[in-house]
């Protein structure tokens, strides 16, 4: 290590230290050495959490809702970004949801989409649903419809912002060359614009997906009790009336962290293989 490198290294460690300490504490607590109910080194929490059907059901459900929401948000964001990139007003409207806190967005979804919500009241007034129970269950529902919509709405704005920025940096000369060589508008988009757009925005898409895996407030207000979303499961275990089960919260938290880290690593490997991408 040369002297020149010490300062930036110290800065990076300073910034990363809360995370490093947090992860280290989480590992110790998962092994029964720290936290409420801690006594001695044990793999009991690991076995109980990883052997539990509810954990894996939660993993599957959380990954599925986050994936669908991210896909919906990305598709909508790309479509909108391509149309509003020349319009300042359009861009402003598209990024408005960024200013709304996640918990407020979740409350809005609850007010709009629950069986006694505004939409249900409108369909009732229109004579389509005689009672609240006739309106489809979109909140606390098995498929997490309102959760996916709320997730997607929030991430949409973030992805529009990124996509507009990426589109602004694209070299338009190749579009014109392709057009003069006889490519249709559709071909230009899929062969030239899309690969560059996707390459520029994919880190943001992965970041949105990883963020949704750990999002707590929205599932707390909108998700069903079964399957139990990962963040809810972590909280539930962390305040379990049985102190001896609280260690499981840390195991599930590490599992969520591993999922996100694995995803980011896979994305990194994929990017490195792209032609012309510099690290």
């Amino acid at each position: 290590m040369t002297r020149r490198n010490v300062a930036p290294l110290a800065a990076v460690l300073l910034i990363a230290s809360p995370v490093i300490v947090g992860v280290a504490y989480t590992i110790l607590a998962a092994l029964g050495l720290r936290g409420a109910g801690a006594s001695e080194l044990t793999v009991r929490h690991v076995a109980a959490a990883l052997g539990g059907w509810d954990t894996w059901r939660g993993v599957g459900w959380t990954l599925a809702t986050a994936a669908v929401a991210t896909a919906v948000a990305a598709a909508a964001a790309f479509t909108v970004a391509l149309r509003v990139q020349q319009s300042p007003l359009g861009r402003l409207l598209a990024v408005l949801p960024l200013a709304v806190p996640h918990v407020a967005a979740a409350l809005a979804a609850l007010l709009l989409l629950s069986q006694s919500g505004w939409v249900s009241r409108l369909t009732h007034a229109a004579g389509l649903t005689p009672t609240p129970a006739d309106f489809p269950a979109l909140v606390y529902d098995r498929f997490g419809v309102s959760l996916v919509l709320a997730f997607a709405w929030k991430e949409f704005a973030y992805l529009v912002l990124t996509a507009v920025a990426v589109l602004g940096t694209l070299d338009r000369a190749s579009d014109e060359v392709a057009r003069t060589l006889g490519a249709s508008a559709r071909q230009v988009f899929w062969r030239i614009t899309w690969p560059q757009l996707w390459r520029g925005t994919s880190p943001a898409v992965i970041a949105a997906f990883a963020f949704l895996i750990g999002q707590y407030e929205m599932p707390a207000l909108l998700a069903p009790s079964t399957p139990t979303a990962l963040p809810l499961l972590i909280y539930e275990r962390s305040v379990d009336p049985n102190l001896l089960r609280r260690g499981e919260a840390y195991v599930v938290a590490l599992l969520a962290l591993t999922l996100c880290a694995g995803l980011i690593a896979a994305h990194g490997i994929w990017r490195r293989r792209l032609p012309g991408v510099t690290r």
Partner: protein
Amino acid sequence: MHLFPRVGRGGLLRAAAAVVALALAGGACRENPRAASAQELAEGPWSTLVAQARGTTVIWRMWRGDPAINAYVDKWVAPRMQEQFGVEVQAVDSQGPEMVNTLVTEREARGGTAGTTSLLWINGETFAQLQQEHLLAGPWTMRLPNAALVDAASPIITRDFEQDPTGYESPWGMVQFALIYDVERTPNPPTTIPALAAWIRAHPGRFTHDQSFTGLTFLKGLMYGLGGGVERFQHGFDEARYVQGRDALFSWLQSVRPYFWREGTTYPPDVAAMHRLFANGEIDFTMSNNQNEVVTKVRQGILPPTSRAVLLDEGTIANAHYVGVPFNAPNPAGAMVLANFLLSPEAQLEKQRGEVWGDGTVLNVPALPEPWPARFADVATDAAALPYDVLAAHARPEVHPQYHTHLLDDWRRVMRADAR
């Protein structure tokens, strides 16, 4: 331009390990903190303690989920504490299970130094956990002058989930579980467990319970009723009796669950969600651990004005709630002055008013000096409030916290998880 400095991986790892070691070094010393300070104070004269508390601040960790309770604490208790004792009261949000985690973290991180909080609002399984982890200071409660006014004959107050609170937590209030219904929608609500089952079957999709504390109290009350009465579950945790009670409860639930809201495939997260579903007409019953919540929530406009409380003849669970001083309290003197004030007749009377909180008193009202008994009798009885003698006749005590722990675990594992 590289984001990360180019150093050998070993260097980065070594530096990271050093950061971790430094950060954990603080937690490594697990010596006993000044657990005696509240206890020491309890040995001196009360006037010294009051003088010591003057000019201090008490940070009080409590559940902050009910605006009515917050208003009582912030707008009624706090100004009087400042005025009469020169003590500033700051209530901060934290629920029982989180308090345990916070105090454990404080002990790990700061060893023998003072923590952040001087008073905790607790009961039941939180009290058990705090005692299990040795996180409470004491004994000190017998030192409070107003402790002499407490109803020492009440089994609900003198036993907190069968545990003896003596010295380590001071009673604050008493509540009893009740179902809440709307007399317009349900003119004849069921008053027995079989009648409730029949009502649920006759009204598919109109009944459920939440998956938090209130819902669990409802289930525990049913377990008493279906399992042969509370007496069978008293005097400590008994595995065989628990299994019998649980099985009776679960088979009852299996038989009515298909007629629950959303066919029992999902449950509202907490009692606030229950109230919302009830007020919006999605379900016909909500519930509360406080028999008077129906009065306060109607006044707040959260529940419809025609809401009423009903008790099941098999009995409903009554319990007391308390305040405790943590082992590392920075200001035990202020906390004890506050705990004493909370037990004063004026503070207990105000708290019991339906328009304030509706929380039952823990004082032995008939034994209070004049004019207090008359004033307590005068607390305006609301049309929605249940009469005292009816409540007393239906009250059943809490049992050992392990029943609570096991039932929650089994309910989540069996009933919640196998929802189709």
